């Protein structure tokens, strides 16, 4: 394939899709008039493009039912996400407030205050470490896509 054919070949898809400038279009027209090889190549790409387009009915779902389901699930997921954010936020605020009240409360002996504080801190650390493990497992679990 000479250089001119190679340059025109790059333009053939744009020619078929009517996406070339007028200048490039004329250039392709002039070339394929005198080049059997590029002319055959254009016909080949045209036939192929038509074959792919004919598959459209099979490959592009016409009915909206599947899309409706997807939308409904997405909306549910968004709603449940908002719900979780509200619940977790409220729990944090309440626990923080309870801790604050507890620290200010006049409890005797002070040792009890420290012990309860350590208990809550320990529970929080354990919860965070379990969450971290779960997240790591979720990212690296090679069997996560296996359907049971």
């Amino acid at each position, binding site marked *: *394939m000479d250089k001119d*054919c*190679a340059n025109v*070949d*790059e*333009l*053939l*898809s*744009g020619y078929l*899709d009517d*996406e070339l400038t007028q200048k490039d279009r004329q250039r392709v027209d002039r070339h394929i008039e005198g080049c059997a*090889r590029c002319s*055959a*190549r254009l*016909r*080949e*790409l045209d*036939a*192929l*493009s038509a*074959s*792919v*387009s*004919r*598959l*459209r009915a*099979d*490959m*592009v*779902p*016409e009915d*909206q039912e*599947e*899309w409706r*389901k*997807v*939308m409904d*699930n*997405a*909306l549910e*997921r*968004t709603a449940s*996400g908002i719900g979780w954010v509200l619940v977790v936020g409220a729990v944090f605020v309440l626990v923080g407030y309870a801790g604050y009240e507890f620290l200010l409360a006049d409890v005797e002996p002070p040792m009890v205050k420290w012990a309860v504080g350590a208990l809550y801190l320990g529970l929080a650390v354990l919860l965070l470490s379990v969450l971290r493990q779960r997240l790591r497992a979720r990212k690296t679990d090679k069997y996560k*896509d296996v359907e049971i």
Partner: protein
Amino acid sequence: MRRAQLMMQLDQVGPSGHALAMNLLGNTADAADVLQDAVATVLRVRSFDPSRGTFKAWFLAIVRNRCLDILREHQRHPLVDVESVELPVEETDSPEAIASQDELAAIVKRELATLPPAHREILILREFLDLGYAEIGRILDVPTGTVMSRLHRARSALARRVRSHG
């Protein structure tokens, strides 16, 4: 953008997103996941800027990026740099000559499904969703000239595979 307006726009572009995800992933469950993610992202972000293209292009770009994430995660089809793939032009039998239309359609369908995603996505956007080069460029985030060369490489790759059945 208001939620009701977004929902209306999503209803219009959703089936195209569905077609893109289905054909890129070849798997109904993954496609549904991708679409749900894309819809959730649109509803959360709500920052569509009309000066940067159509809503359809924006939505399809979100769907396409999520599909590529999933393909990378699954490593089913490693992405190839289509710009570097050499595609010699051979002068052999044309697709018209090798089979009847139905046979040809079956071959094309099979070969299309096994093309690298980078080729597949651009063919889906052009041939199935009937998008112009400018819109495809916005979805793939590449200039129009690159769309033309990528599409040409994709068609050439498909033509070569179809020819091999002749």
